[in-house]
């Protein structure tokens, strides 16, 4: 069997951590080969080595059976290896073609840029692989899914034989994901080979031929996807058996904790984003907010937590109105908030874990007294959360958060918010971008909070998650409450229709 790319016995060590330890992966011509692993398992390091950004300490890379040394990304490009990055590297005001030829411009009479013939080639490639991209559209005018196709075209334009997709679906809508999977099939049909980095088993099942699983820097094995169950792959990845269903008891709701009355909130563009929204949330229950992204969920949460002003209506906690209170006052009256964007809102990435874990309480005893920080108390607090929430990092509490994996960052936030012992816990996208193991863990923690008598407001774009965790589900569409349903009495189909804006009673009967 011919392999297009082989990485054999790769080892890469960083100070204090072995990122890759004897990893082997072989890519056949014309296959989609998934690289599966938890966050921090060493996927990115391995691909960075293949793309020439790091040099391996040990091991061999072969392309078409010939040993090569890839010293930088240009060498990788020349060898026909292209990478579709998770974060696109595009120039917004430029057209598709201009972006594609950037760095390898064809010139006319030495000076003039030959955009026309480049655009023609882009169009041909687009047709050949079914990408359907307009070569003259401007990047800022096209959707995220389209932008990703431009990144793919960029690689094809440079005659890449091997395409590496780094978590390509993280930014896409379900429909776009399906389209992308179609494109990937087209690519392999046309003779390209693909390495797909992901931790989403569903996608692997949908599109990949083989799958190499790595865990903690080591190869666990390579399997034929068709012959392997989701559960089996998950177990290889996590190292133990994983349940996809969350076990939970029937909830026992108590008093109303959060009461939202005809709440209206304007977004940053001064447009009503939440319209006359009402909802009650009781102690000991989880209410999930289901909705398509951008339908007012973020604004709803920010109005409750005080990050956005309330335009009209009231929000009260334990019977006390929150309107007009500052973020800090609301925090202190019993709200904890696991924010949507953990790196933007939830953490100061350049602070240590210790420092991040007192982000909302640094000004209160025992963490400070008379304006002076108390390092002893801060350290003890951090050690406690690190232990009880299994936050892993290089050097314990002194680690800079930026150096930690996404899952551990999220665990730190959840630990911090839960430990504040709030009456109301708001969890927004608590498992976004996390691996199966972490998701399972976080779900258990949220239910544990409910069982302790907290009110939990869960906002998630993953319908599975909402269905698995919530006792009741409120569906939001275009800033308005479409309806509230009991989880036990609904299903995915009904929720999907409500998310599209149909009232419950209007929903066509099955």
């Amino acid at each position: 069997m011919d392999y297009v790319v082989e990485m054999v016995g790769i080892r890469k060590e960083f100070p204090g951590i072995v990122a890759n330890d004897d990893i082997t992966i072989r890519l056949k011509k014309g296959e989609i080969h998934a690289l599966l692993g938890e966050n921090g398992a060493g996927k990115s390091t391995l691909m960075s080595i293949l793309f020439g950004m790091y040099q391996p300490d040990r091991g061999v890379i072969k392309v078409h059976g010939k040993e090569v040394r890839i010293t930088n990304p240009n060498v990788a490009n020349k060898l026909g290896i292209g990478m579709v990055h998770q974060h696109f590297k595009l120039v917004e005001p430029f057209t598709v073609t201009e972006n594609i030829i950037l760095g390898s411009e064809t010139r006319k009479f030495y000076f003039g840029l030959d955009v026309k013939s480049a655009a023609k080639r882009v169009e041909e490639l687009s047709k050949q692989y079914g990408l359907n991209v307009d070569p003259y559209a401007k990047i800022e005018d096209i959707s995220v899914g389209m932008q990703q196709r431009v990144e793919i075209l960029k690689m094809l334009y440079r005659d890449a034989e091997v395409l590496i997709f780094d978590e390509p679906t993280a930014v896409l809508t379900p429909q776009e994901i399906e389209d992308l999977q179609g494109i990937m099939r087209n690519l392999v049909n046309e003779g390209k080979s693909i390495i797909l980095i992901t931790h989403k088993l569903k996608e692997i099942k949908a599109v990949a031929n083989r799958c190499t699983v790595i865990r903690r820097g080591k190869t666990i094995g390579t399997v034929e996807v068709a012959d392997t169950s989701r559960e089996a792959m998950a177990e290889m990845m996590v190292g133990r058996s994983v349940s996809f269903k969350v076990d939970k008891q029937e909830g026992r709701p108590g008093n109303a904790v959060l009461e939202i009355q005809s709440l209206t909130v304007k977004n940053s563009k001064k447009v009503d984003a939440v319209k006359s929204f009402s909802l009650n949330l009781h102690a000991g229950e989880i209410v999930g907010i289901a909705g398509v992204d951008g339908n007012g969920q973020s604004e709803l949460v920010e109005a409750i937590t005080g990050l956005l002003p309330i335009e009209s209506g009231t929000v009260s906690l334990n019977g006390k109105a929150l309107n007009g209170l500052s973020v800090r006052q609301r925090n202190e009256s019993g709200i904890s908030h696991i924010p949507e964007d953990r790196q933007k809102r939830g953490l100061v990435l350049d602070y240590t874990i210790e420092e991040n874990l007192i982000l909302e309480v640094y000004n209160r005893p025992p963490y400070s007294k008379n304006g002076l920080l108390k390092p002893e108390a801060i350290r003890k607090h951090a050690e406690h959360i690190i232990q009880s929430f299994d936050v892993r990092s290089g050097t314990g509490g002194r680690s800079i958060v930026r150096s930690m994996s996404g899952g551990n960052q999220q665990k730190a936030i959840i630990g911090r918010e839960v430990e504040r012992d709030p009456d109301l816990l708001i969890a927004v996208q608590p498992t976004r971008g996390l691996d199966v193991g972490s998701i399972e863990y976080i779900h258990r923690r949220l239910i544990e909070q409910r069982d302790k008598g907290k009110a939990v407001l869960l906002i998630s774009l993953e319908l599975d998650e909402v269905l698995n965790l919530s006792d009741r589900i409120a569906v939001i569409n275009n800033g308005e409450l479409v309806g509230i349903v009991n989880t036990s009495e609904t299903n995915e189909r009904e929720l999907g229709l409500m998310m599209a804006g149909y009232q419950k009673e209007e929903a066509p009967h099955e």
Partner: protein
Amino acid sequence: MNNSVKSLVAVLFGLIAGALLMALTGHDPVEGYKYLIQGGLKNPERIGNTLATATPLILTGLSVAFAFRTGLFNIGAAGQMLFGGFCATAVGLSLELPRALLLLVMVLAGFIGGALWAVVPGFLKAKYNVHEVVSTIMMNWTAYWTVYYVIPAYFKGTSLETESRQLPADAMLHQQWLSDMFQGSYINFGFFIAVIAVLVVAFLINKTTLGYELKAVGFNRHASEYAGIAVKRSIVLSMFISGGLAGLAGVAQYAGNASSLQIGVMPSQGFDGIAVALLGINAPVGVFVSALFFGILYSGRGFMNAMTEIPPEIADSIIAIIIYFAATSILIERLYHKLKLRRAANKKQGE
């Protein structure tokens, strides 16, 4: 690579580059550096002068470093220093108080003057998101021309149109016993102000909740909002403190190292403060050490000129090269990584 090692390597590179320049222009680098260092440290008087030269640099360096640590790029230390010095001079020339009280009021006036000059950009940043680099530079010139107008109009010297009246002896940071201790050097209380400022800033940044807040806002404004920190207030406060430190540099310069305020001169210490802060890796103690290093360079340069045939312009270039290397110490790290990579590659090929 450790940050302070990086700074030391940067200094070393700067000295080597300076040596090359001396050699290229036909001068003996060993002799040049010998006299450069002697000029800064040869006798108590010269040591005193070096400390005095370093004093405003410590304070402007601290000002820039403090702003850096709280996520702000205060490039207006020159203007804040000038205006702080102006406020102190105005107080010194206008009020008649017992000496200790007068000096205290002058120091306060200098701090507040510099602070106010920085609060304007801070406010613009907090409220309208105006980038502080632009607004602090503009405030530099506002200070320059304000002083240019006010000094001749209200504090004109008897014969010199370009300077304020000389401060009375009671309104100066000079102290005879201190001067005598350093054999007639013009070292003055300004140095102690600088040392105290270093300690206070170090304490503030590392040990207090205020420092925690300001740094958090500097690192991540959104997370600070989330945590309930008053972000806008923090930005203004950071600029206030940063400007105040630069204002103290003005007090040390105009009421300590000089005895009057000249118009039409933008204090170069304001800009040197940026280099001092970079070389001092934005840590208070680092700033202190790097300012002393600059002090030796600046005060030893003249003696190197006098003792060798190196012309002043070459000496200026040598100092500039050293500063340049020092300030771009970030490049050193890249070079280090490249070397490491290459070594690893060579080793691999050798196997």
